[in-house]
Every structure is written in C-alpha cells, then in structure tokens.
C-alpha cells in the first residue's frame, strides 16, 4: 500500500511541480479514480438531462400534440326559435292598374311579399347594412348581413387591432374547429381556417383542443360540459355572459339557450365595469399578445387582437389594460381567449396582425361570415 509520505518524495515533488492542472504542488494529486468518478458524474448528469428533455417531449406529444378525437357524444342544443326573428311588416302599396299601350287591358303588378325577414337585428342596425351590394375596402366590409370595420391602434408601446362587428343574424357569428373535428391535438393555422370557412374576419379561439376539459359549445352543439376556469357563453338571442367557475351551472346555461361556449379566460369585465390587477382569475397578467372578444348588445360585437413580445413594435397589453380598452369602447362583457403565439386575426383571407414568431396553429376560431344559400 502506498504511504502518504510518498507524496513528499523527490519523485513526487517533481511530478507535483510539473502538474498541468494548476493546483498547488503541496496539494495531493487527484487520483485517476476520483477523476474518473467526476467524468462519470458529468456523463450521468448529461444523460439524465437528455432523458428529462425526452420525457417532457413524450409527455407533450401524448398530452396535446398527437390528435385524439373526442369520445364523448355531442349534444345538439335547441336552435334559435322563430319568435326571436324579427318579422317586419312592409306596407305594400295597392296594386296599380297600369294601362298598356298594346291592347289597352289592365295588368296587375306582382304583389310584394307581405313580410320581409329582417333577421334578428336587421331593423336595429339597418344603417349598418346595405341593400344587397357588398362594399369592401382594406379594412372594412359591408353587406346586407354584415358590417365589419378593422381599426389599428398604436399606444403605449402596444399595437392592437379592433374588429367592430355588426351582424344581422346570430348565424353570421360562427365558430370553427380545426379539421372540422372535435378532439385534442387537431390544429390548423387561423388564417387557413378563416379561408376555408369564407370568413370575413376571424380570430383565434380558446384552443380547447390543448386540454381535455373545459366547456365546449360550438354553433349550438354541446361537446364538453366540464368546468375549467372562467366561461363565456353566447346565448341564442345574441347576448353574451361570463361566469366564474363558482357561478357556472351547466343546466342553467342550457336552459337559457346557450349557443356558443368558450373556456379560457379570464373574464375581463364585471357588471360592465373594467377590472383591476389582482382581480383577474389568471396569473398571466404581464404584457402579452392577446386575443379577446367583446359584447356591446345583441348583434354588435368586437374582436380585439393585441400583438406583443416584439420590442420596437408592440410589447402587448396587460389584462388590466385590455379590460380598460373594452370599457372605453363601450362593451359590457369582455373575455380573454388564448393569446401568446396563438393570437392571430385574419381579415379577408389574410393575417391582419403580426403574430409573435409567426404564430402557431390552434384548434378553433371565432369568425364572421355570410350565410350560405
């Protein structure tokens, strides 16, 4: 067995003086065994870190990346009742007897339709719609059923886009699921979904497919009814309501005629008033890209898309700032949807905003479109 005193032998001193590790010659030289152990520790640490990375990727794959079709049975909710549609009587002039130059016999003009379907809000917003023609510019769209105006706002190092929306009928306010399939992991780009659905304006939704819980009601079909955080419900009379998890009751909202339902949040206004920091049901209050929807009255809505995380262009908005924007616009209900890199607005088949890092695919959109047929 080698004695410790050997370290001070002339041979050892010579070795110590020429050590390349920079240690003091009086320090005992680290043995090959301890150096090997250090290497093994580093090696195993690297292997462990790699395994942690692989484990997280595999978890994410199974959690939300691999598409899995929803297994629960979708329930179709009652459609909009005819009494909710305005039937406006049109004063029809008495049929005129017009003399003809040919044979002198009187001909009767065709009787006009006694009632004109004004839709749910056609009369209320008559000045917003055209008589049938479509007027479209770079930031506006006006037809007999829809009126959309996109406004770009730049203030306080933030850039955001407001889509002011009037619709004649609730059928003009639609939602779409990626690949037309309910489930987790199905995703598409917002602009692609908007193009495929002939949307006038579209905004990224609550990304319901990233989770397997939370209310999902789309176009009158209940897909998922378990609660998750704050909820936004659009009823079939065009009204919107937000609920905190404690206030939410699925039976009540179904009885009230839920037509659309989203789960993300947080809700941005309470009793028509803006909210302040600390009162939101969310930890994500710092400035961020955001996607949100606001409600003025039945038939009048707005989408707001906030760009963010882009220094020199837009830092984004806090939840408090966003709440105040909706309040200043005159909204009575406002609700935050999935933001960050997901936040994208599309108008007439093109992206309106500049999404953070090009945006990412999402599982659903809210959009405004003409009714087919």
């Amino acid at each position, binding site marked *: 067995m080698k004695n410790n005193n050997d370290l001070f032998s002339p041979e050892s001193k010579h070795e110590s003086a020429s050590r390349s590790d920079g240690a003091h010659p009086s320090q005992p030289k680290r043995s090959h065994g301890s150096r090997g152990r250090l290497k093994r520790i580093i090696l195993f640490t690297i292997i462990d870190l790699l395994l942690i990375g692989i484990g997280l990727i595999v*978890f994410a794959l199974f959690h939300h990346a691999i598409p899995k079709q929803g297994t629960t049975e979708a329930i179709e909710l009652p459609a909009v009742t005819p009494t909710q549609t305005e039937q406006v009587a049109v004063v029809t002039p008495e049929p005129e007897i017009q003399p003809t130059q040919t044979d002198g016999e009187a001909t009767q003009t065709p009787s006009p339709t006694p009632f004109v379907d004004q839709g749910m809000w056609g009369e209320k917003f008559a000045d917003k719609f055209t008589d049938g023609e479509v007027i479209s510019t770079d930031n506006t769209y006006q037809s007999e059923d829809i009126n959309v105006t996109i406004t770009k706002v730049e203030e306080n190092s933030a850039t955001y886009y407001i889509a002011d929306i009037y619709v004649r009928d609730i059928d003009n306010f639609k939602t779409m699921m990626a690949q037309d399939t309910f489930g987790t992991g199905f995703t598409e780009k917002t602009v692609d979904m908007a193009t495929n659905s002939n949307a006038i304006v579209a905004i990224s939704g609550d990304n319901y497919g990233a989770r397997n819980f939370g209310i999902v009601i789309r176009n009158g079909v209940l897909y998922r009814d378990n609660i998750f955080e704050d909820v936004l419900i659009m009823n079939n009379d065009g009204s919107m309501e937000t609920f905190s998890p404690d206030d939410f009751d699925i039976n009540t909202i179904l009885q009230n005629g839920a037509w659309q339902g989203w789960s993300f949040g947080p809700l941005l206004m309470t009793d028509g008033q803006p909210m302040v920091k600390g009162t939101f049901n969310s930890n994500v209050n710092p400035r961020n890209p955001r996607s949100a929807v606001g409600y003025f009255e039945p038939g009048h809505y707005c989408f707001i898309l906030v760009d963010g995380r882009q220094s020199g262009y837009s830092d984004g908005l806090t939840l408090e700032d966003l709440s105040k924007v909706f309040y200043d616009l005159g909204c009575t209900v406002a609700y935050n949807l999935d933001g960050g890199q997901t936040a994208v607005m599309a108008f007439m088949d093109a992206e309106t905003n500049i999404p953070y890092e090009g945006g990412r695919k999402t599982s659903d959109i809210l959009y405004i479109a003409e009714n087919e047929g």
Partner: protein
Amino acid sequence: MIKKIFAHLTIVITVIMVVLLVIDSVNDAMGFLRGAEFKTLLIIYCVVALLTAVFYIVSVPRKRGRYVRVAKKKPHEID
C-alpha cells in the same frame, strides 16, 4: 446496476414533474396536471420510487453489517 438505473429514473421523473408543476403554476390553461398523462406519469413515478426505496433498504443492512464487522476488528487486524 439496476439499482442505479432506478435511482436515475427517480431523478428524471422527479425533475419532469417539477417542470410540469412550475409550468402549471404559471399558466394552468394547458392543464398539464389534469390530464390522464400526468396520472400515468404519477403511477410510473410511484413504482420507480418504490423500487428505488426497496433496493436501497435491501442494500443498507449489508453495509451496516460490514461496518460493524470492521469496527469489531482489533486495530492491528485492520490493514
């Protein structure tokens, strides 16, 4: 060897779970802790932790016995 593998697996799964807990505390909208995947991970973690503990417990008495034997040796018997 297998004892070491399970010890490393315990470290790996623990760190994965801590990462998921931190993400969930920042943004729970992803629902990492609510899905079936996290429950599966939790079950795996329990099994691995249990086996790691069993291997450790099985190995400790042997060591203690050896130390005891070494201590009982007379000073001149210790090389």
